[in-house]
């Protein structure tokens, strides 16, 4: 028996041992994915009495890019992603720098800051919804005390609803970035900072020319991770505004939910979901590339 054949045999054994897991992945991930890809080419609405499941080719995808609701949803999603990710990055970095010191107080403050992350997004949404409520909510109450006209309440005003929803996301996810950046800060070597100080660099200069460049890997990981997650936002919107007022906070994922679970228009919903999938997949690939580069 030659070595290569022996090796092959082993490989087959590995495969066998992996089989249960592979079956699991196939059933849970690959089959549904393939099925959603498949039905996205059909006109397939479950609650339509004359439902025929006719093949319509790319029609669902073409409709999607012409559908004003989808365009609104995509642009809302982009606004949401840009707004939350940029602010979360800045706040996360600021908090990480502020709380990097290893004192007792800082440790306590840090652990408190992690609490929002531990709450289910749906519950977070419900809590903030009652805080924002125009007639009974705490936030609206204090805004009124300050003489601010809250109108229909933060979630009810066209111009304020999106920032109000973004604030919830920022409140919940900034701590995650803080943790990532803190880990990055802790792993930085001390020598360059000492050298810079000897050379007379100001604190600002050492931050700009040493900390930031060396923190780049952590920043990139945080950025990509939050971007991907932010694209998929659903729970917060579902719990607070249902995409309203009007369609001011209808993000793509929420719109897909409406099409799929209210109209049961599965073909079209699958097409929309696949569009979202492509966006997120591209970002994920980018994420993997960046991560691999860092290991070198």
């Amino acid at each position: 028996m030659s070595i290569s054949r022996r090796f092959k045999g082993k490989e087959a054994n590995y495969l066998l041992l992996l089989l249960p897991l592979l079956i699991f992945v196939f059933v849970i991930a690959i089959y549904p994915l393939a099925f959603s890809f498949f039905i996205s080419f059909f006109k397939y609405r479950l609650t339509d009495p004359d439902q025929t499941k006719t093949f319509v080719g790319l029609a669902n995808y073409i409709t999607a890019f012409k559908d004003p609701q989808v365009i609104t949803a995509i642009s809302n999603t982009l606004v949401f992603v840009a707004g939350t990710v940029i602010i979360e990055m800045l706040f996360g970095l600021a908090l990480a720098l502020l709380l990097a010191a290893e004192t007792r107080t800082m440790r306590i403050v840090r652990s408190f800051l992690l609490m929002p992350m531990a709450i289910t997004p749906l519950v977070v949404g419900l809590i903030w919804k009652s805080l924002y409520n125009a007639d009974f909510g705490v936030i609206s109450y204090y805004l009124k005390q300050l003489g601010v006209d809250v109108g229909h309440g933060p979630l009810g005003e066209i111009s304020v609803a999106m920032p109000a929803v973004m604030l919830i996301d920022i409140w919940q996810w900034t701590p995650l970035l803080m943790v990532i950046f803190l880990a990055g800060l802790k792993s930085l070597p001390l020598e360059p900072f000492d050298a810079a100080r000897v050379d007379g660099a100001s604190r600002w200069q050492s931050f700009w020319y040493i900390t930031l460049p060396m923190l780049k890997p952590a920043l990139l990981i945080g950025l990509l991770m939050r971007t991907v997650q932010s694209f998929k936002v659903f729970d917060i919107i579902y719990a607070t505004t249902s995409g309203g007022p009007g369609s001011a906070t209808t993000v793509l994922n929420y719109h897909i939910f409406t099409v799929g679970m209210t109209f049961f228009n599965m073909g079209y919903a699958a097409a929309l979901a696949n569009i979202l999938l492509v966006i997120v997949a591209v970002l994920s690939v980018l994420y993997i590339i960046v991560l691999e580069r860092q290991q070198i």
Partner: protein
Amino acid sequence: MEKVKKIASALMILVFLLSLISSQALAQDEVVCESEVVVQANDWLSKLADKFYGDILAYQAIADATNAKAASDDSYAAIQDVNIIEPGWKLCIPSAEAAGVLIEAAQAKTPTAEQPFAGTELTLATMTDQFLTGFRYLIPKFEEETGITIVLDELGYVDLYQKLTADFVGHTANYDLMTMDIVWSGEYAANRYTLPLDDFMARDEAELQLDDIMPVAWTLGEWEGKHWAYPLAGYANVLNYRKDVLAEAGVEPPKTQQELLALAQQLTDADNDFYGVALLGAKGPAVAQDYMAWVQQHGGAILDADGKPALNSAENVEILEFFGELFKYAPPGATDYWWDQRETAFRTGNVAMMEGWSIARAGYEDSDISSVVGNVDVAKAPVTEGMDPKYGFGGWGIGINADSENSEAAWEFIKWLSTPEIQKEWIRHDGAPIRRSTLEDPELNKEYPWFPILLESFEKGDGDYRPRIPQYSMIQDALGTAVNGYLVGEMSAQDALDQAQAQVEAAMQ
């Protein structure tokens, strides 16, 4: 050689997996002894049951398991009398779980002549509406009478619709019975989701007193001549108002829509957070249904004469503008109000008037949830000037899942619930009426002095002002977004309804 090995190992894994499945399946019908006991002097079955399960009453499980074993293996003793066991007998002690199953099976109810469906378990998916209290109160009585068990699954409006549809589409038959909103009748009928009840109704006609059910109540489940749900709770759209506030202002409750608007304006005192009227404005079903109620009260129509959606007719645009006008005298948060928030606004005394479903009326006299006890009265919903009065009618039917295997038992429950005597209890526990005899009952009229208004509203009720067509959910969703968009100033009334019309037309293609 390698190939053979590969196949052999694949087969082994397969066999292993299969054995996992089958051993589980076998456990169901074959008794497995967790341990064996040889009877000693001074042992008795209850003592052993106490020792192994901590329950002296579980002795029957040991006896049953041992007898089952004895049938195939004569080293086990056969117990003829649970009171007599002899030293030296070998007994089979099943695991605690298995014992639980055995005991339950022994106690399980068996059908008898008086209780032909005893032991049947039904699952009822219900909307978390006020009538839920009625279910909670009446179901135990029904269970006692018939031996049928009913499990309640309480769901909010949107969740209920989604879960039911998923259950129907997948034919999973998780629910035997379901409360069904009047507006779902068309869709459920066209898809044959629920069982047509006509055969049952024809068979049991003698005991159903069908003539006594208000004609409008049939719209709760009737579609194209068949009954896809049985009337459960009929609601009339009525005007609730604060007696004290109106008396103080020296005015009568409004008779027309125009008076309603004028009065709402007069009674609004925004500086003191008091508003004329409470309305539903939240994006989604809430605002869509409230707007449609106003279309009805203004004599408009959602569908044209051919039954095609005509959301953006000139008349409807005008009605939407009127609706928007009313919102000026509603609490600012009203564009976010769902049914429960509107109720809260009225019950906490922040508004003078509120149109809404009659079922909420009794709750205003409950000091646990209402701070306006004794100050509320109810009037017929005002219609626009010169219109022949018609009143919005809605509510819930109760249907049987077409896939249910327990349809006879489910029908038994529907029939029982709709008997006139039970209906009185239903009303007294926050249910809503469907029968004329209930609405005219002198006792109930004493307890609920607003029943005559309800009766009149039912007599002139319009159950179709929200079109009960199979595509209803799309109309509702399109209006739900567009009307809310108009109310918060995103677009004009014309644009909003144009958008909704385009959306519905596209979806109905």
